[in-house]
């Protein structure tokens, strides 16, 4: 520790810290040193010169952001010398900056405006013409007014250092310096919106929010991001009961100061025209607006009747994995008290074979921060930068710290971090690759963790990749196998989980699951699964999983914020099951024409911004939030809807007055009966055959993942948002005599869809990528498996 004196106050600090870091410490008592280019999460540029301070024994004023403290250093941040330098820089910054704050979107929350109040002059001495800079079109999310740019380069450094892709740079020199993309193009980073927060002036602002509200007239409410299992902390900015925009809320252990574009811009859907604002019932195929008592009584009567006459197991519930833990807990409690265990949130999955030996909840066996300390990471079936952008950033940090990242994927995704080695195979070959690695480990003398493993993998031929990976997994250090969405949704997900578990055991590593939606972990904990009750309660008669419920053609389905054709793994089957059901009730914030076509009652629920609730993230953190605005129209929080429904069904123990009571009841159970975190998977009895011929690969594209984000227009317009296509390699297209400008008829079981062909060298041979989450592809069946393709002449 060394001693440094700033503005007469003495500090004991670690050597190597910059003056600005010491002054920025909470309770330092030092007034803020003005700055523009400095940002604690970015590298030091020292180019804006705003933070010049007076350091004793230095002739020149020195930048506080780039001057390390030394023992006995005496710093004055407000001496005449410091103030003169700061004021001089302020004047230079302002001469070419438009002085029209009233018409600038940043006005009121502009760092330049704030600092100018302290260091600027009333009157400009600059009489020359001001510089004007052509605006750049950066796509649908970030608006530009480049004349306002002060060249601090935070946005440039963000791309290079955080997002992991150089999208913006400085072009031109001297006075003609501009920030731009060099060649005209949109931003494609899934974290691009962060440059809006970073930009200290009104050069980069939010396009969807633009000119819609002023910073000082909005209220701020803390909340949790509703899209992925990271659970980023955010603030909702509201004006007159409307969410106007979303900004990150700093939480060093989760999202730091960042937010993914999905979490930032999906708020547009909160005030979508498609919001369902009144209960509706269908009479003679006509939708009638009704009141709550009528609608709920009808649902209770119908469900009660079906339970009584056909048995409660003819009723099933499908829940969105982004439902709150309270909604899930009450849904399963109602279903189970009614006598049915048919409840599931695993909408995108088709293979549930390993579910009984799964842990309390699938997630990270470590904290998000701990990802950064791993020495070896093996991503299996994961497009992490799109699935959980902030987790992808953590992997990037790990990789930059020297972690070796290996990838086994059915498509050659572009990652924002260096990959040590990758194996890109068609989906059905993925389990085999894991078996290859296990075989190499066995050959190297590692004991088989479970008897029979040796025999299982005996016939495989290890590839070069298997050898490299095995060697890496055998080195000392922390290692984790991350199973992403593709691994969990795979038609042999059970095999993949079991083999990954064996691999982890053999190498003293861990298996981590990055699950769908914001609250898969919560759904497991609260009993939103057919085979376990809340808090891992054993069931004598496990219920049906998603796939079984759809195949069984139940009499009644309860949908909690689910659009089966877009959210379920097998949309064809889902839509058929719904259409043939006797009674379908949909609780959702949105009116969806497809859902309405087979539903009998539509109950308007509210999105996360209008209700209290809790999400459990991948690391098991319970994060509660309150509603930021009143429910719109007649819509009500889903937990209330279910509670009243249960009351009407005359089910006991549904007397909750608040969301907190629901939370409290579940929390008590979890605390009472400390859940067993241990899990161990058996080994598969066989290795699945690789499909000969063409097979399908499916992903839920980043901005098609749930009902909320699908209704955010600005995200839909981005370049990285997929469209319904049949993407394949040039080789396959050539063999099928297809070209990029033609359409194909894709056949899968009974399903059929006509899709445009897209050529890509990222897709392995004999594999066709067809995204889920689109109406067009909802005519097809399972996300994986054999398909046939022929040229469409239309």
């Amino acid at each position, binding site marked *: 520790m060394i001693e440094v004196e700033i503005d007469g106050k003495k500090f004991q600090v670690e050597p190597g810290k910059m003056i600005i870091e010491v002054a920025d410490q909470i309770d330092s008592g030092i007034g803020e040193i003005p700055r523009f280019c400095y940002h604690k999460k970015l590298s*030091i540029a020292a180019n804006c010169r705003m933070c010049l301070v007076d350091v004793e024994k230095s002739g020149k004023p020195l930048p506080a952001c780039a001057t390390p403290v030394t023992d006995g250093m005496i710093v004055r941040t407000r001496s005449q010398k410091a103030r003169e330098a700061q004021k001089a820089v302020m004047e*230079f910054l302002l001469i070419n900056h438009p002085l029209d704050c009233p018409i600038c979107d940043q006005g009121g929350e502009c760092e330049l405006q704030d600092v100018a109040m302290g260091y600027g002059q009333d009157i400009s001495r600059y009489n020359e013409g001001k510089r004007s800079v052509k605006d750049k079109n950066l796509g649908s999310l970030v608006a530009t007014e480049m004349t306002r740019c002060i060249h601090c380069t935070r946005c440039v450094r963000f791309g290079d250092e955080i997002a992991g892709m150089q999208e913006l740079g400085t072009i031109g020199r001297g006075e003609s310096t501009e920030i731009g993309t060099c060649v005209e193009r949109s931003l494609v980073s899934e974290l691009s919106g962060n440059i809006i927060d970073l930009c200290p002036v009104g050069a980069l602002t939010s396009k969807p929010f633009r000119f819609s509200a002023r910073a000082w007239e909005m209220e701020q409410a803390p909340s949790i991001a509703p899209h992925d299992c990271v659970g980023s902390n955010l603030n909702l900015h509201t004006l007159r009961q409307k969410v106007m925009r979303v900004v990150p809320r700093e939480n060093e252990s989760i999202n730091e100061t960042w937010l993914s574009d999905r979490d930032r811009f999906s708020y547009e859907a909160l005030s979508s025209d498609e919001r369902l604002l009144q209960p509706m019932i269908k009479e003679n195929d006509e939708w009638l607006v009704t009141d709550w008592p009528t609608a709920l009584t009808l649902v209770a009567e119908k469900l009660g009747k079906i339970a009584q006459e056909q048995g409660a197991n003819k009723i099933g519930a499908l829940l969105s994995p982004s439902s709150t833990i309270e909604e899930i807990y009450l849904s399963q409690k109602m279903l189970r008290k009614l006598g049915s265990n048919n409840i599931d949130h695993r909408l995108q999955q088709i293979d549930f074979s390993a579910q009984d030996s799964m842990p309390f909840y699938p997630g990270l066996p470590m904290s998000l921060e701990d990802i950064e300390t791993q020495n070896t990471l093996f991503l299996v079936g994961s497009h992490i930068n799109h699935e959980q952008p902030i987790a992808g950033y953590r992997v990037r940090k790990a990789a930059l710290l020297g972690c070796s990242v290996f990838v086994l994927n059915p498509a050659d995704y572009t990652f924002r971090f260096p990959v040590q080695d990758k194996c890109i195979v068609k989906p059905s070959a993925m389990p085999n690759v894991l078996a290859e690695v296990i075989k190499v480990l066995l050959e190297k003398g590692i004991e088989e963790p479970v008897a029979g493993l040796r025999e299982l993998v005996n016939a495989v031929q290890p590839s070069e990749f298997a050898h490299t990976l095995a060697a890496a997994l055998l080195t000392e250090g922390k290692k984790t196998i991350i199973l992403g969405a593709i691994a969990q949704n795979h038609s042999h997900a059970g095999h993949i989980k079991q083999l990954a578990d064996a691999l982890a055991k053999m190498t003293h590593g861990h298996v981590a699951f990055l699950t769908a939606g914001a609250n898969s972990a919560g759904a497991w904990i609260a009993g939103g699964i057919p085979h376990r009750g809340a808090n891992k309660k054993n069931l004598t008669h496990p219920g049906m999983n998603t796939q079984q419920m759809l195949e069984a053609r139940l009499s009644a389905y309860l949908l909690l914020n689910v659009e089966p054709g877009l959210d379920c793994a097998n949309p064809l089957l889902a839509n058929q099951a719904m259409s043939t059901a006797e009674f379908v009730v949909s609780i959702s914030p949105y009116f969806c024409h497809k859902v309405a076509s087979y539903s009998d009652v539509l109950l308007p629920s509210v999105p996360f911004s209008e209700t209290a609730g809790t999400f459990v993230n991948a690391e098991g953190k319970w994060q509660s939030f309150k509603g930021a605005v009143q429910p719109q129209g007649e819509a009500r929080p889903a937990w209330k809807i279910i509670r009243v429904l249960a009351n009407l069904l005359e089910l006991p123990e549904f007397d909750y007055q608040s969301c907190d009571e629901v939370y409290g009841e579940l929390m008590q159970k979890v605390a009472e009966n400390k859940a067993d975190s241990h899990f161990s998977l058996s080994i598969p009895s066989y290795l699945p055959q690789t499909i000969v011929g063409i097979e399908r690969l499916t992903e839920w594209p980043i901005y098609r993942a749930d009902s909320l984000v699908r209704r955010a227009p600005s995200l839909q317009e981005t370049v990285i948002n997929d469209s319904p296509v049949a993407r394949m390699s040039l080789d396959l297209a050539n063999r099928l005599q297809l070209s990029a400008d033609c359409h194909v008829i894709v056949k899968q079981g009974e399903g059929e869809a006509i899709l445009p062909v897209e050529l890509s060298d990222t897709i392995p041979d004999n594999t066709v990528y067809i995204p889920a989450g689109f109406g067009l592809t909802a005519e097809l069946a399972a996300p994986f498996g054999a398909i046939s393709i022929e040229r469409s002449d239309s």
Partner: protein
Amino acid sequence: MSITLNEICFRTLHQHEPWTLATYEQADGYQALKRILANKTPSQEIVEQLKVSSLRGRGGAGFPTGLKWSFISPSTPAPKYVVCNADEGEPGTFKDRDILRFNPHQLIEGMIIACYVVGATDAYIYIRGEFYEPIARVAAALEEAKAAGYLGENILGSGVTCRIHFHVGAGAYICGEETALLESLEGKQGKPRFKPPFPANFGLYGRPTTINNVETFASVPVILMKGGNWFLDLGKPNNGGYKVFSVSGHVNKPGNYEIPLGTPFSELLELAGGVWKGRKLKAVIPGGSSAPVIPGHMMMDLTMDYDCIAKAGSMLGSGAVIVMDDSTCMVKVLARNAEFYHDESCGQCTPCREGTGWVARVADRIEHGEGTERDLALMTQVAMAMVGRTICVLADSIALPVVSFMKYYREEFEYHVKHKRCP
């Protein structure tokens, strides 16, 4: 005239095709290197000789070379680099161009010795893009040296490896600033780095790097052959040896003159044939366009060395002596100078990006008779607001001249404002 010219860098200038290896070897070229390799002279001894010689960096800053070379030793972990700054771009300076043209082997020998001293295996010459003839000469010389075994692996059977690569710049003045040069050499935009860390710790590709000017490297072989004291005695204390002065402007014989440091300016002017057309000396910029101007009568009393010029309020810089006769419009000189720095600002630091253009516009306005009384104060204030507040000294390079022009020639600026023309 008792001065002996051309003792160091131009010592072979009088020879036939002095740029060839044959000519250089006849003039004891590569002897210093051979001796070092044969004797396995410890780096420390070489550094000691350089310290004794009082050789100071010839690029403009005048940093003691021996001290600089002592920062990195053969025991510093590799990789580490030696870089030659041949991006001579300071207006008025053209000495390196002629060293590159006429004595490239002496530069190469100096660089090989530098590599030996710091234990580097690779060195780079960053050469100004417009130097067509020098580029060809250096390229040819490197080939010759390689063929003769002075460069490459195991040079002259000594076990020492030394490779010299060369890179052609693209015309930015700022790339003559050493850290901007390193950035450019790495393939990035030529923008100066914040210091510290200095190149000796964090240089090319983030590795320890010794970077020197062409003339500095080229002086080393002669010093090591003849001894540090010999060199020191050629000049004056703390200002050892000879230095090339590029004399330009209103003189009868503009050109490069390699003379002892400490030579009176009057003698240098005489060497250059005196002020042309029989006119009177008005002003001199003694160290390139970034050096403050000194009125002629003051200059006649000064000697050409670092300390004396600094004492007079200017700097010796790269030794570019710009002579102006009494017909010169000082306002126009400053306006032209200001426009150069405006044009060459890299744009990263706020004061320079915004200030150089402001100064240039005000100066231009005054020159064209459109300035006001207020502009006179404004120009100085804006200039002073930049000084010492940027990453590199480009802003100072116009700010300090502005101050000096206003100090010595204020009445000319006032005349322009009042009468809208030159006096």
